[in-house]
Each structure stands twice: as structure tokens, then as C-alpha cells.
């Protein structure tokens, strides 16, 4: 049994954890949910020893322990499966599994690889992975690597007394549905060896896998429920502290698009190096969702439209005019805006303030003979801060310090204020909490009403169904099936999944 009592943590004045009690029994699977900033990641870091608590105690089987480093925690049987995988790609699977714990295999200073391979095979068998332990890790699929990571943590079992506690941090975010099922069945099968703490934004998965669910809000545990008594709606309500409207995706505001006005057309376009053939039309006011499993080829289509990739063949027409030169600067000049998946890498320049970020794509409109008109830039920023209710102290605030939702609003404002009317949204709500998601959905409806055409790669299928007018199901780079998505006649998850896999 693993127990946290009255855990307190402050970071330079911010009270992150306020007396958290947390208990996990042997063989239990605990779901841990909460909005961004609720304190989930700090709590996890305390559990696996990356951060030390300011107050409260950690007990393993009734004994108080102190974790100064993750290695201390590992010695007590607490292991972490990282969201951004921690395996080193150019090492072999077995080297990764025993990284830092090679000692049992060393004789006269040299590692006995056969012995290590044997031991690695034992660990891989626990997760049902039948691969050669000498495989270079980068050759594995993402899902396989996730399992290797799990096997790596399970290898602790032989080194510690008592049961293991394994943390799974958003393990499903980059897996396909099949792979998620596989992971879940592995986790369930491992219950007699270990207990699990499962952190995810996807509440349906939390419900499917966990025994009990801890809901964290503003640094405190607001509720502990048994999964069989809980529903997505009740968890959401606890997380946000209020009822989520039934009109989550603002379907009431979905209005038909303008069929006569084609903004963007792909005519038998082959995405570079994929040998596929994509044709689609985007109309003014339309939300077109590209749906498919991870790696099905949705992103390359978006990147081709934005000019980051040059198509092998076919024609791309913007407002009827064929595109000849492919570059982001050409696309931006023709009214395309791209809201990338990696918000912190491609979306927001941290270290730059709000107006500098907003005008980045349209600086020419704010210069005279190359000299910037900063007062006009600030005016624009203030206007959009008001319009999208962006929470910032002023237009001089560093965008790197804003919350994810506010950063996303700045990126949206950047394109909308520049007059872009073809907007490419790549996972626009990724990592946002529920309140911020609702804001983004409302903005999407606003843009549609203004006659903007939107191509969307949604974070979840529900989101794609809820938001879009049209859905294109993509598999292996090609569009396999089109769905019409009028309110009241939307396809079901089942309809879509059939064509995805």
C-alpha cells in the first residue's frame, strides 16, 4: 500500500498542492484527473521522486519514506512511464530496460549480453511483447516502445521488496485505438504484480480502466469516486466545478456553409513521398474535419496545403487559382493560417509579447518603409485581447508565460486579425482545459459565421463530429469515406471507426 498524507507544495508563492491525501492499495488502478494547472503533474513528480514536498508524508506499507531522486523512488518500487518517452532510440531494447542497472550482468568489467538478453526477455514477456531484446529501439513502433517502457519499469520487481506502483502519464495520447486496447489489457493483466496510477485527459479511458478516480481541482482532492458509480459528466462537473453545457460543441450555432464559394481545392494531390491521391473542396463557412488514426497521413495533408511540403503531383487551388510555388510565405500571403499542433514550438514565440506575436505573420501591414508602427500594433493587440477575452495583464505580457488556452487565442488572433480566411487547425484543443476548449469551440463557430473555411484535425473523434460540417476519414494517406455532419444527423463514433481501421 502506498499512501500520501497531507502533501503540501509551493512554488515561489503559488500554492500548488494543498494538503493532498492519496492512497493506493495493492493491485489497484487509480485514475487521476484534473484540469491543467490543478496540480496533477506536481503530485506525480512528488510520487516518483522528481520533486520534494514541502509538508506531509509519503508512506510505503506503513513506513514513512523520503524520495530525494527518482532513483530513491525506484528502490521503493515506484516507477514512471513517461508521456514523452524516455527510451534512448539508438540503444537496444535490453540496454534501455537495464539502463543504470547493468551491475548484475557485469563480469570482470564487461557486460554479458547473453545474460542481459535473457533477463530482458523475461521482462518483455510480462507485457506480452515478442521482440528480440537486441533490436535497436528506434526500429520499434510507438506503441511497442510504450510497452518496452512499461517493461523497463516492471524490471524493478526483481530488485525491490513489496509491490510496485507504476505511474502512467497520458500513455494513450499518441496511440491508435487498437494499441490503446492492447495497453489496457496488458495493464489489467499486470494488476497482481503492480498497482497503477493512470493520468489522462480522456475521461472515457479513465472510466474504462480505473477502479477508483481521484479528482484534483486547484491543488486539492475534491472527490474520490469508484469508477462504476462515475460518469463522464459527473467527473467533468467535479473538475470544472460547474455543469458543462450540453451544447459543448455549440452545435446550435452550426449554420450551413456557402456551397457556391470554394476557398480551397485539392485536385488529385499526391503528398510528397506517400503516393496517395487526395481531392477535397473547402467552402466558405465550412468546418472540414480530417479523421484517422495516428500516422494515417492527416498532418502531411495539412502541411502540404500550408506549403511546407511540395506535392508530388496534382493541383492545389486557392480561390480557384492554381498554386505553383509552395512555401509557407506564399500560403500566408494568400490567406491561409496554420495553427500547429506543437503550440509552444511553432505557434507561440515565447520571450515575445502579445502584439509582437500577433503581427508576426503580417508585419508588412504595420510598417512604413520597413519601420514598424508599434502604436498600431498595440492597438490591434488590445482590440483582439478584448474580442477573444484573452487573460493578460497588458499587450506587453510575454506570451511564453500565458496559459495554453490564452496562447492558443493569441495564435488564432494572429491569423484572424491578418484576414486569413482559410484556417488549418491541427489539434487546436490539445492540452487545454475544459473552459479553454469551450472558448476555442466558440471561436471556431465565430469564424464559420464570418465565412472562414476551416480544416480541422481534432483531438478526439467526438470533437471532430461535434464541430464539423463534413468529415473525411483518412486511412493510409487516402480519403476512404466522406460523412455529412449536419446537426441532428451526425455520424456516430462507430460509423467513423469502421473506416479508420
Amino acid at each position, binding site marked *: 500500500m502506498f499512501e500520501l498524507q497531507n502533501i503540501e507544495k509551493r512554488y515561489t508563492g503559488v500554492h500548488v498542492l494543498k494538503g493532498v491525501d492519496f492512497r493506493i492499495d495493492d493491485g489497484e488502478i487509480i485514475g487521476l484527473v484534473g484540469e491543467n494547472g490543478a496540480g496533477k503533474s506536481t503530485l506525480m513528480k512528488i510520487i516518483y521522486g522528481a520533486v520534494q514536498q514541502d509538508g506531509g508524508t509519503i508512506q510505503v506499507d506503513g513506513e514513512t519514506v523520503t524520495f530525494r531522486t527518482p532513483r530513491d523512488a525506484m528502490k521503493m518500487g515506484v516507477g514512471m512511464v513517461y508521456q514523452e518517452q524516455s527510451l534512448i532510440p539508438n540503444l537496444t531494447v535490453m540496454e534501455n530496460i537495464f539502463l543504470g542497472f547493468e551491475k548484475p550482468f557485469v563480469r570482470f568489467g564487461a557486460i554479458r549480453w547473453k545474460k542481459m538478453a535473457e533477463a530482458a526477455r523475461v521482462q518483455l514477456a510480462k507485457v506480452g511483447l515478442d521482440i528480440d531484446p537486441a533490436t535497436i529501439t528506434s526500429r520499434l513502433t510507438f506503441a511497442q516502445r510504450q510497452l518496452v517502457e512499461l517493461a523497463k519499469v516492471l524490471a524493478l520487481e526483481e530488485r525491490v521488496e513489496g509491490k510496485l506502483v507504476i505511474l502512467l502519464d497520458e500513455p494513450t495520447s499518441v496511440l491508435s485505438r487498437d494499441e490503446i486496447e492492447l495497453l489496457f489489457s496488458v495493464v489489467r493483466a499486470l494488476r497482481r504484480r503492480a498497482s497503477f496510477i493512470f493520468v489522462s485527459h480522456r475521461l472515457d479511458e479513465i472510466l474504462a480502466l480505473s477502479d477508483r478516480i481521484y479528482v484534483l481541482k486547484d491543488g486539492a482532492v475534491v472527490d474520490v469516486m469508484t469508477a462504476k458509480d462515475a460518469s463522464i459528466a459527473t467527473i467533468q462537473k467535479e473538475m470544472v466545478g460547474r455543469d458543462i453545457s450540453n451544447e459543448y460543441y455549440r452545435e446550435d450555432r452550426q449554420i450551413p456553409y456557402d456551397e457556391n464559394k470554394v476557398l480551397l481545392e485539392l485536385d488529385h494531390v499526391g503528398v510528397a513521398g506517400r503516393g496517395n491521391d487526395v481531392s477535397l473542396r473547402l467552402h466558405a463557412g465550412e468546418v472540414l474535419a480530417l479523421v484517422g488514426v495516428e500516422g494515417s497521413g492527416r498532418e502531411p495533408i495539412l502541411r502540404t496545403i500550408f506549403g*511546407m511540403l511540395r506535392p508530388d503531383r496534382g493541383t492545389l487551388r486557392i480561390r480557384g487559382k492554381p498554386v505553383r510555388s509552395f512555401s509557407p510565405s506564399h500560403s500566408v500571403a494568400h490567406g491561409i493560417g496554420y495553427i500547429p499542433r506543437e503550440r509552444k514550438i511553432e505557434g507561440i*514565440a515565447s520571450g515575445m509579447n502579445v502584439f509582437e506575436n500577433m503581427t*508576426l505573420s503580417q*508585419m508588412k501591414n504595420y510598417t512604413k518603409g520597413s519601420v514598424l508602427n508599434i502604436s498600431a500594433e498595440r492597438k490591434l493587440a488590445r482590440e483582439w485581447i478584448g474580442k477573444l477575452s484573452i487573460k493578460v495583464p497588458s499587450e506587453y505580457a510575454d506570451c511564453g508565460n500565458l496559459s495554453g488556452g490564452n496562447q492558443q487565442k493569441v495564435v488564432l488572433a494572429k491569423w484572424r486579425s491578418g484576414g486569413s480566411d482559410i484556417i488549418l487547425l491541427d489539434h487546436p484543443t490539445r492540452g487545454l482545459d475544459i473552459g479553454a476548449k469551450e472558448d476555442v469551440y466558440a471561436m471556431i463557430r465565430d469564424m464559420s459565421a464570418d465565412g472562414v473555411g476551416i480544416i480541422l484535425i481534432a483531438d478526439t473523434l467526438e470533437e471532430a463530429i461535434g464541430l464539423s460540417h463534413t468529415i473525411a476519414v483518412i486511412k493510409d494517406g487516402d480519403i476512404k469515406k466522406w460523412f455529412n455532419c449536419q446537426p441532428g444527423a451526425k455520424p456516430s463514433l462507430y460509423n467513423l471507426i469502421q473506416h479508420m481501421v
Partner: protein
Amino acid sequence: MLLLVGLRDINFLSPQNLVTLVADVVPLLIMATGMTFVIYIGGIDLSSQSIANMATVLATISLPALGVGSALLVIAAGLLFGAVSGVVTTRLKVPSFISTLAVGGIALSVGQYASGQQALHMDTEQRRHAFGWVTGQTAGIPHILVLALVIVAIAWFLQIRMLPGRTLKAIGAGEPVVVASGIRADRYKILAFALSGMFAAIAGLMFSIRLSGGSPTLAEGFLLPAIVAVLVGGTPLTGGVGGVLNTLIGTMIVAVVRASMLYFSIPATGQQIFFGLVLIVAIATTIDRSKMKVVK
């Protein structure tokens, strides 16, 4: 530091001495200002010193034939060498510390070849005719200092108020954002290197005029103080923050330290030890670790 040295020798603080101190630092200031642009985008320019060396030689050689036009030749040469570094870095994707090191090697060689490996001297009359306005003084203030401040002011305006400056800042803050905003980032990166090369050449030109001659090793020992000036001023190697004004302050710090060391009669050869140490401390304390997770 100024006061400390002033206590030892009150002459150190005399206005005349301070003006000379500042005027002496002009070539370094201009070189560091140019270097600021490259460091601002997160790169480094190791060719500055060699380009300045080359500039002293080219200026001296071309003075008899071109007169004041030799300045233009030298500036164009610096711009060209800098631009080559930029093209190599962006198009061939060679890290800037290697590309500028290589271009610096070429520049050094050009200087050696053109000078025949020896120190050259300007004809006094020709120098006075072409560049007398640079070496003169008005009311005790050397013209060269005014000129340097004008150059720094232009660089500063370019950095904070003009489109290229904003773009360079954004590249330093996060280049993928710039590309995803539809800006041709490579062009601006080449511009940063070209500016750095041009400023290095102007620095060499100033030095050459002051010393009335040129040699392929004249500007030796400039590179380290120039980098120190930029970093101590507050433009970290990872880029995105700081700028030209910071470098102005950084150069002043370097100038005071250098002059103080002279007063404490630390030989010039020993100064580099100090600047090397300061550089390490400056980098270690200013670098933005979030942008550099792994250091190799």
C-alpha cells in the same frame, strides 16, 4: 572598478583620459554591435576578427587608388564575407560556429595574401586627405567616437523599430514560429551574418585609420573581448533577448576592465586569460537552459 583604479591614480579619472579610453574602444564596439545581430538569432560569428584583419589590409592597399572610396570597398567586402557565412549556415545547414570559422579562415588568408604577409603603412597625406575627418576632434571629442555612436544608433533603430530587427528577435525566440508564420527566415538569418561581417569590416577600417596602416594580424585579440561584450551586456548565446544597447554597455564594461588591467600593469598577453574566464562565466550564467536541454 573605475573608482578603484581612480584611487590608485587620480589621472585615470580625468576627462581627457576617459575620452581616450572610450575612443580606443571604438573598433571593438562596432565589431561587437555587428556580432550582436548574429548572437541575437542564436548563432555565433567567429569570423569577425579575421574580417577586420582583412579590412585593415584592403583599406591600406586601396587607399592610394580609391581614396575615400576604399571605405566602400572594405564595407562591401565585409558584407560579402558575412553573407557567405549566412548562406553556408542556412542553405547548407552548417552550424554557424563552423561556417564562420571557415569563412574567417578564408578572410584571414585573403588578408595575408594581399599584404604579402607584412605590415603596410598608409601615406600620411593620403590618409589625411581621405579620412582626416575621422581622426579629427571637435571640442575635445574625437570624431571617431561620434561616428561610432551614430553607427550604433542606426543598428539600435534597426533592431527595435524595424521589420528586420523584429524578425531577428523572433528567430532568436523561436525559429519554427517564424517559418510557420510565413516568413522566409533564411533571408533574415543571412542578413544578420552579412551585417555582422559589414560591421567587422567597418571596425577594421576604423582601426586601420587610427593606426595609419594595416596588417593581417592587426586586429588580433579582438574576437574574445567582442563576444564577451555581447554576452556580458546581456544577449545570451541562445538569442531572442538583449540587443545593441546591451552590447554598448557590455563594451563599456570590457573597456573599463581592459584599461584597469593596464593600470595594474597586467600585460596584454595576460588579458586574454581574463576574458576567457569571463566568457565562461558569462555564458554559464546567461544561457537559457530551456532552449538547450543537451549540450555537446
